[in-house]
């Protein structure tokens, strides 16, 4: 009872952009709304995920979306993969029309994907996507992100030099993809690069610590790239009185604040990443699929990029706000325009 494979383009081609030229397109049998949609999240205890869950709720509450949804259920199961698999199994057994997931493991969901397909349920993964051709994946280009950061460094450090690469959580595909992207570009540049790799675990504290260590023993560096915890990395540079150098990093507001503040001193940044609002795109995709529209099997989201010298106060960073949220939260091509403040602030007003 799976979808029909059809030829493109997708129904809303600006938003549902196929990953590559050979991406397949799906057309599911049209169903009558309103739909029962379930969302299976894994881990929840970081800001990115909280912002993501809030965005999901806000999106589902928008009048036009709400009209199409009969029930929107969210379950967060923690870090444990089997618990998430079971949650999805339960959703399947309970007859939801579509299941959206941020998966703890890309390869572990084979049996679930099979069952969902047999039951005719639309399964959409985003952020941590699934390694499959039988469900829909929505994501930013993680490897492209690494490439982007490396290109920035190649451009700003034209003669090659010493680079500090602060990586994420070992063993995740996100970390690997980004790392590979970085190194492919650096290698291809033909310059001589001396890269010091440390693991910052996408966490400011950890990243700051390992950066401080690296500066003390292997510094100074000519350029830096960080996958996350970038506020901490800059902080460590400041604490160690390390000169400001070009930096390719994520979209944390704190990082961007630093970039804007110290741009003149040499902290030339490009900041891009995976916005938590992809969840809204994923839900949107699920609804489109249920309505029988043509959707690509892999949806590629644009990176929300802001680079020196074009970082604008009030759109790209917010000096008065927390360091801790990810600014890139809107996907205009999909009509998803939440700002992070709106998301995190809105509920504050509700309480």
């Amino acid at each position: 009872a799976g979808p029909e494979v059809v030829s493109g383009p997708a129904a809303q081609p600006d938003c549902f952009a196929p990953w590559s030229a050979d991406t397949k397109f799906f057309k599911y049998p049209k169903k009558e709304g309103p739909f029962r949609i379930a969302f299976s999240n894994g881990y929840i205890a970081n800001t990115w995920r909280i912002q993501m869950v809030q965005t999901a709720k806000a999106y589902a509450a928008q009048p036009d979306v709400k009209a199409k949804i009969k029930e929107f259920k969210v379950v967060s199961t923690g870090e444990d993969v089997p618990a998430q698999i079971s949650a999805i199994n339960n959703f399947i057994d309970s007859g939801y029309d579509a299941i959206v997931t941020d998966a703890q493991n890309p390869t572990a969901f084979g049996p679930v994907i099979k069952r969902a397909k047999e039951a005719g349920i639309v399964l959409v993964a985003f952020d941590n996507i699934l390694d499959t051709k039988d469900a829909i994946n929505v994501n930013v280009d993680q490897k492209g992100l690494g490439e982007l950061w490396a290109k920035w460094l190649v451009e700003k450090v034209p003669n090659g030099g010493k680079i500090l690469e602060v990586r994420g959580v070992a063993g995740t595909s996100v970390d690997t993809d980004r790392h590979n992207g970085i190194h492919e570009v650096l290698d291809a540049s033909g310059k001589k690069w001396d890269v010091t790799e440390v693991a910052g675990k996408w966490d400011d504290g950890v990243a700051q610590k390992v950066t401080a260590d690296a500066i003390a023993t292997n510094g100074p560096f000519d350029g830096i790239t960080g996958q996350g915890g970038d506020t901490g990395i800059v902080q460590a540079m400041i604490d160690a009185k390390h000169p400001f150098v070009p930096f390719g990093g994520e979209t944390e507001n704190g990082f961007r604040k630093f970039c804007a503040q110290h741009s003149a001193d040499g902290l030339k940044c490009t900041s891009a990443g995976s916005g938590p609002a992809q969840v809204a795109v994923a839900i949107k995709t699920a609804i489109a699929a249920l309505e029988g529209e043509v959707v690509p099997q892999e949806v590629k989201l644009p990176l929300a990029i802001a680079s020196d010298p074009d970082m604008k106060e009030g759109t790209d960073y917010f000096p008065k706000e927390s360091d801790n949220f990810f600014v890139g939260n809107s996907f205009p091509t999909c009509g998803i325009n939440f700002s992070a403040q709106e998301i995190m602030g809105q509920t504050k007003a509700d309480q």
Partner: protein
Amino acid sequence: MKDWRYLLAEQRGTLLALGIFIVMFIIYTTNHPAGFTANVVQTAANKGVLLAFVAMAQTLVVITAGIDLSVGMILLLTNCLASWLVVGTPLETTLGVIAVLAAGLVCGAINGAIVIYGRLQPIVATIATGAVYYGIGLLLRPFPGGSVNEDLADALTGKLFDVIPTSLVALLVVVLVVWVPFSRSEFGRAAYAAGSSETAAYMSGVPIRRGKFIAYALAGVLASVGGLFLTFFTYTGEAAYASGNSYTLFSIAAVVLGGVSLFGGKGSAIGAIFGALAFRTIGDLLFVFDFDPLWQPLFQGVILLIAVSLGAFALFRVRNRLEWFL
């Protein structure tokens, strides 16, 4: 005399765990949109059995008054290993399964050797070996992947006669093949004796070291059975640090819920199994009650807090305050 009273007293922890589990599971299934169906039970069983294996492993060590903070990492390591080895023809698959179990045995034996012959305190010793096992797991699977013999995997995570979850049958088999002989053997008794009072056991000529060593080694085997099941359940290997840690911590919770004393010498793996199933059902309750996703972790925490505090009610019956101290 009143033999059954003694029997009841012996099994009190296990029965309490069984009771807690049944109550929770009834609440769960009666509120489940799909109800008490074979599928719902199978889903719950597959998830629960995994933790049950790890909890059994933890039980063996806890009985000796030790603790194994590396069980979760042995689970990960053997999961990664299985995702390489448990593939191919039935013969290859069988050899793979044996190799995985052997790896678990080796991990457990290393823990045992360090704790018993190295005379290190189990908590730190296993924190350290856990790091090593995780590191090896990460070497095997730098990122998630691999595969498993899917026929075997489907068979063991599926249903027997379309009703009984095979995983439960497998759990039963492991209980019969590992736990029952162990607990009734001289070495099992030595493990209990050592946990209850190591000096007394030594003075009585009990083979303490062997008993403890076997307990640790079998714990490694049971954790690797868990690792196998994880592979069957997910078709892959993954060295996920956080998940390994949470299995370790969950196993402690399961063991306590199952009436196994962390002070050693008391409790049974059967209790720990029900403890594990009950613990898993706490997570399932999220599914049937409509909780705001942000409140879900808090809900789970509070239920856990209540569950572990249940045992404290017995305290109000204590009339002699010296009984507070063991």
